[in-house]
């Protein structure tokens, strides 16, 4: 677990076509794998050339996303998040 690379999803709510689910914004997870680069869908959606960006599969614990009282805190959610939505982070407090 110590070699986990933690990232936090930006907590912003910009307008437009965004493929970062709102329920994960502000949450911290670790990188499961890195994919891409893929063109930025926020630009593609408006007919612009999409800037190629790394796409990271980030794994979140249920405890991090839904709080420590969630039924099964150690189950996980993986989601694909474009790199411009992520910032390096410390591990979240243990649930």
């Amino acid at each position, binding site marked *: 677990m110590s070699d986990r690379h933690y990232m936090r999803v930006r907590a912003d709510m910009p307008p437009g076509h965004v*493929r*970062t*689910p709102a*329920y994960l914004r502000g949450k911290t997870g670790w990188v499961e794998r890195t*994919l*891409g680069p*893929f063109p930025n*869908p926020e630009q593609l959606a408006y007919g612009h050339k999409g800037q190629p960006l790394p*796409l990271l*599969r980030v*794994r979140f614990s249920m405890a991090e*996303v*839904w709080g420590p009282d*969630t*039924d*099964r805190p*150690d*189950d*996980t*959610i*993986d*989601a*694909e*998040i*474009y790199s411009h939505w992520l910032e390096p982070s410390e591990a979240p407090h243990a649930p």
Partner: protein
Amino acid sequence: MPHDHHDHLSPSGHPYRPDDDHPLTYWQQMEIAVRELLIEKGETTAQEIAAQIDAMDARTPSNGAAVVARAWTDPAFREALLADASAATREMGFDIGPMRLIALENTPDTHNIVVCTLCSCYPRNLLGLPPDWYKSRAYRARTVKEPHKVLAEFGVTLPDTTTIRVHDSTADMRYVVIPARPAGTEGWSADTLAALVTRDSMIGTGLPKAADAA
């Protein structure tokens, strides 16, 4: 029969059900208008559109079942599939187009389930059209929050020790679950095994059929 309001009743004596047709929605009208314009301007033809719909309808979960059954019987293919599912399925002859695929293998202590909370992303080339429930708000909202309960409603009860991994298909990747090979199928051919692989077992909302179901 002593029914008084004959005009509300069918000859069976039961009330008529109201018709369930309704006026076209804004987007249904828009689709028809754009389609007719594209045909009128010669950009496409009605035949091309019909052929594309036929091609879409021709894709069925048997494509995915063939991939799973091969992964169960061919260790080198399984390894290639887990390393790069796009390349491995393309090599099997499935046209994946611009799609990129990740295969998720269930193990004795891990169960994978796929959802697209933002819309309805689905590996159509391997599984065909998604079932209606896959696109429903309830499935999309609840699977990321209480997958254990959602699975139980699908009839899948897992040991408490099994970790559930939910995969939210948010961007460029599509996902197929490789369920665990059913017990008692040693020595079976890939073709026979494929008959045990259900659509839901490749979404993660089901398990393959048992050996005695074949």
